[in-house]
């Protein structure tokens, strides 16, 4: 069985032969609509995995498939968000959100004729992440958390089938982070989108994901998969239950071992 995102026995080297072996023999399958989390020691190749899955890098061995097709160029269907919000400072929030629509077809050719429709969509999205009426603010007028929400919205505006999040909440304080967990959880539930989330926060992984992949130290490969069987919808309260803590503890042991 192949998943919606499928990496099979993938190895990747940065900087040509003799360069850094980032991942080796990495296999990972994520089903359509699934929320997958990837955890592992720092530098183990998690960001590399994201780049391979979106066609920003190509493996020297193994195959990468997305939506049943071999990835040979950037995938076009992915929304991405990173730890840094990377908003354009010369555009206000709303204009920042419209950026992907200026690139992705069919929106690209429809945008100027159906501007109002797209602006309404952007405003809805902003409202859904608690940024109602912030559309005309510029990025530097927003707090870090608000910028990160905007960055998430930008990743979602073209309604991608695949959402790739690389430590999107890494730079935020604990309260804002937990608030955004709720935002992501609801977006995933509402849109049935496939999500791959890279994180260092094990609680975050367990709270959000259906399945968690634990990676080894560099060169990275998948050590274990852990299905999170906590029923949805999940509330923040769930993070205080023994079942939740047990999974977090189990993952922590895997990572401690992986680091050795």
């Amino acid at each position: 069985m192949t998943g919606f995102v499928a990496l099979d026995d993938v190895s990747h080297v940065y900087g040509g032969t003799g360069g850094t072996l980032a991942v080796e023999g990495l296999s990972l399958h994520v089903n359509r609509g699934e929320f997958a989390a990837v955890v592992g020691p720092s530098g183990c190749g998690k960001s590399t995995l994201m780049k391979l899955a979106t066609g920003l890098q190509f493996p020297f061995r193994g195959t990468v498939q997305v939506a049943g097709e071999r990835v040979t160029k950037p995938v076009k269907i992915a929304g991405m968000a990173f730890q840094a919000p990377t908003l354009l400072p010369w555009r206000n929030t709303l204009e920042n959100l419209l950026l992907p629509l200026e690139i992705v077809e069919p929106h690209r050719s429809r945008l100027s004729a159906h501007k109002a429709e797209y602006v309404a969509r952007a405003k809805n999205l902003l409202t859904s992440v608690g940024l109602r009426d912030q559309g005309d603010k510029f990025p530097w007028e927003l707090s870090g958390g608000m910028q990160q929400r905007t960055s998430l919205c930008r990743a979602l505006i073209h309604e991608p089938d695949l959402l790739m999040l690389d430590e999107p909440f890494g730079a935020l304080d604990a309260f804002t982070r937990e608030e955004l967990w709720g935002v992501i959880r609801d977006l995933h539930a509402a849109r049935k989108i496939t999500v791959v989330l890279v994180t260092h926060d094990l609680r975050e992984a367990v709270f959000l994901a259906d399945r968690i992949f634990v990676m080894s130290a560099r060169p990275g490969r998948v050590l274990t998969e852990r299905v999170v069987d906590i029923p949805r919808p999940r509330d923040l309260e769930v993070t205080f239950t023994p079942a939740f803590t047990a999974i977090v503890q189990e993952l922590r042991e895997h990572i401690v071992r992986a680091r050795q």
Partner: protein
Amino acid sequence: MSKTPLAIRLAPWIATIALIAVWELAVDLFKIPQFFLPSPWAVGKAIVEYWPALYRNSLFTLSTTLVGFALAVGFGLLLGLAVGWSRAINAGIYPLMIGFNAIPKVAVVPILVLWFGIGFVPAVLTAFLISFFPIVVNVATGLATIEPELEDVLKALGASKLDIMRKVGIPRALPYFFGSLKVAITLAFVGSVISESVASNTGIGNLMLQAQAQFQVPLIFAGLVALAVEGIVMYALMAMLEARMTGWAQRSGFAQG
């Protein structure tokens, strides 16, 4: 933007007046002869006395500078875009450009005279040659320093290189470009004056050379003052243009090169 305090607004005037006062006092106190260092008063008198010549030659210098500068802006922008666009073009052209920039432009003037005669054309070309380099470097830097993560976000959407340049590269290169104009315009003046003082019958550079030959030291200084005034005015214009065109960069604390 908040209002600038009075002290800050007055500071440039106070500093200028203080400099003139110290200069005047020093000349009087140490009895410095006029043919060595004329007092500001003597320079002022020379400005009034030779006003028509100063005015005419200043206009000439200003015109050669501006034409050379305009060429530098056009050419610098194009070359900067090319260098920022392609790593291969960058690798090929950069060493050439650095080598070229290292050549003292005064050494190039005789060649220009050989090709184009004296006067307007070599002055324009010297101004151009000396001032395009910072524009190229700045535009290329603006393009080359796009955050890799932002580039990834756009590429994963299927953006072409042209898309990335249009949506991100060029807007973010603009503050670098407008910032470089301030440097380029002052360099263009240097170029014009160099060429005029070697190979021209007009222009402030030529005026100062003639004044020197006739020991009219106050007139030399009057020429310097004229250049300084033109330089300050053009610099201020470029700074205003910069603030107008890329206000977002200043308000957001965008990194400037």
